[in-house]
């Protein structure tokens, strides 16, 4: 535990590589609608925030929520309704949706955080299904199977219906959300979450109210998922039952696992890949997207559990070790065999809490 805290309180400024990465990421985010079809770029941005918000629970708190579609979808409907009926600028509508998602997460989270592991996954899935049925039955509000249509996209009189323009209007919200997540993860609160993930009994013994921390993480994660969901609905001008369906929860989990659990960069990367893959398949006219995404997911879970980011980090660590070893005499390396990249992931669900 102490080791963990020391590792995290090191000043981030010592690591120029990290700033380089951040700059490259920002540049890519800004250039995205030039590189790919702009609506897909917006989808990637929304899903990236959703996946990263989910990873706050999965990677940093060690709770697999299989029901985050409830928050993404609730906010999608709420933001849509606010935008339609009030005419407020879209960021306010998105914020309203996120707040409603957070409010919904309080009772659901209260009931769920008493459990962990597989039980937590099942219970969150069940509550999300309940929200799905509510959305399905409340036709006067949600439009039922027709969905909520005609959500306006405007900001202070500006017309943002061009997806290219809207991307730049929506991107700051996503970046703000990701920045918020980064701050949460690197705050003392975030470190307590990691401690709870690694050893809940010990965290409790030290005196942390484990359930309260988990609940707060759950609500924060739901609020940021809501931010993403509201933005997604407004960018499409449409919110449908798909947004509260269990497949949406599963898709977000898929992104996190593919990108690498316990890394905000990984979740973003996973979101980009999954959205791109699905877009590629649907424009190619393939009508069984689940066959491909499901197979990819099965393979990732079987063979590649550390995810893309995790694999990259392992490679980087191995390269670093090789570089440090080079000046030493060859006899020393023979005496101390190279430790294989840590496989703590297998036991503790996530390799390292670095963002």
């Amino acid at each position, binding site marked *: 535990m102490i080791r963990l805290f020391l590792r995290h309180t090191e000043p981030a400024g010592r690591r120029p590589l990290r700033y380089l990465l951040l700059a490259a990421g920002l540049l890519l985010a800004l250039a995205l609608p030039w590189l790919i079809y702009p609506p897909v770029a917006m989808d990637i941005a929304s899903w990236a925030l959703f996946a990263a918000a989910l990873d706050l629970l999965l990677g940093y708190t060690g709770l*697999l929520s*299989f029901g985050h579609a409830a928050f993404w979808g609730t906010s999608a409907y709420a933001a849509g309704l606010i935008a339609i009926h009030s005419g407020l600028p879209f960021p306010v509508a998105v914020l309203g949706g996120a707040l409603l998602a957070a409010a919904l997460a309080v009772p659901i989270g209260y*009931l*769920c955080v*008493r*459990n*962990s*592991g*597989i*039980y937590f*996954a*099942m*219970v969150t*899935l*069940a*509550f999300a*299904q*309940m929200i799905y*049925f*509510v959305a*399905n*039955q409340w036709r006067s509000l949600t439009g039922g199977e027709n969905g909520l249509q005609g959500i306006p996209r405007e900001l202070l009189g500006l017309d943002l219906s061009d997806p290219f323009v809207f991307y730049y209007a929506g991107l700051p919200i996503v970046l703000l959300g990701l920045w918020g997540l980064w701050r949460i993860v690197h705050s003392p609160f975030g470190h307590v979450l990691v401690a709870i993930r690694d050893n809940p009994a010990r965290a409790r013994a030290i005196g942390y109210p484990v359930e309260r921390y988990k609940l707060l993480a759950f609500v924060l994660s739901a609020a940021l998922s809501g931010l993403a969901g509201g933005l997604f609905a407004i960018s499409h001008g449409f919110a449908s039952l798909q947004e509260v369906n*269990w*497949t949406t929860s*599963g898709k977000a*989990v*898929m992104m996190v*696992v593919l990108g690498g659990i316990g890394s905000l960069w990984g979740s973003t990367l996973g979101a980009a890949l999954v959205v791109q893959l699905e877009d590629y398949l649907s424009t190619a006219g393939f*009508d*069984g*997207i*689940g*066959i491909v*995404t*499901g*197979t*990819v*997911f*099965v393979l990732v*879970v*079987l063979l590649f*559990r550390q995810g893309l980011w995790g694999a990259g980090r392992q490679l980087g660590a191995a390269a670093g070790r090789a570089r440090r070893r080079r000046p030493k005499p060859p006899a020393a390396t023979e005496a101390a065999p190279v430790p294989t990249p840590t496989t703590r992931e*297998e*036991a503790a*669900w996530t390799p390292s809490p670095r963002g």
Partner: protein
Amino acid sequence: MSGFLQQCFNGLVSGGFYALLALGLAVIFGMLGVVNFAHGAFFMLGAFGAYVALAEFGVPFWAALVAVPALLFLFGAVLERTLIRRLVPFDPLYNFLLTFGLTLVLQDLVKREYGVQSQPYPRPAELSGSLDLGLFDYPAYQVFVLAAAVLLCLAVWLILTRTRVGMVVRAATERPELTRALGVNVGRWVTPVFAFGVALAGLAGVLAAPMRAVNPLMGADLIIAVFAVVVIGGLGSVFGSVLAGFAIGLVQSLGNLYVPALSQTLIFIIMAGVLLWRPAGLFGREEART
């Protein structure tokens, strides 16, 4: 009065499906520590198996009732040997994710082949009429399904409590290491138990084909409700799962009668109540929760 009783019967019939699926989930969870997300997909495959057998090969219902679960038993055994087994040593969540991916694959494979619309499946001729149950007439097929569900649950219960195989499975469920240390080859039973759970889901699917819409999504909607049932009954408790299955079917059906607005959400409201009162479920043990 007869309307009330009839609704009770409807509830017990749909509770029978919950119970059969929850039973398979509980047995698999007990033996492997795996919560099988694909259980609903296997249920759907069972129903589609019966449909395809009849439509393409002219295989009647009664033959499908034996053949389809047998095929799914083999399918389950292959899955356990090739995929599930590899992840058992790791966090159980990985197998949950694996079976989720499998669900997507199976569901979309069937959807691609047969579309999303429901396929018709006729009732077997022997059970097409209705039975006079004293106060009201009831479709003979539904009576058969209820009887079959009760008998199957009873049979599994007897196997688990009265036979040597059942003893081994129960011991392995409670204390796998100790059971192994006593010289029982636990690993030998893992594949058959998983395959048995899959076959049971398939059998429930065949039973559902003549009375429910046969479509690729029939399993996914059901399995989430079954998860709620399992949470209510207590994960890992076979008895709790079966009892909760029938009870939830009954309550849901009566809810349909008296508060139709809540018909779909009632089960989750009950789950919330149970979680408040007993987080491990009505018959669950605390240790199963983590």
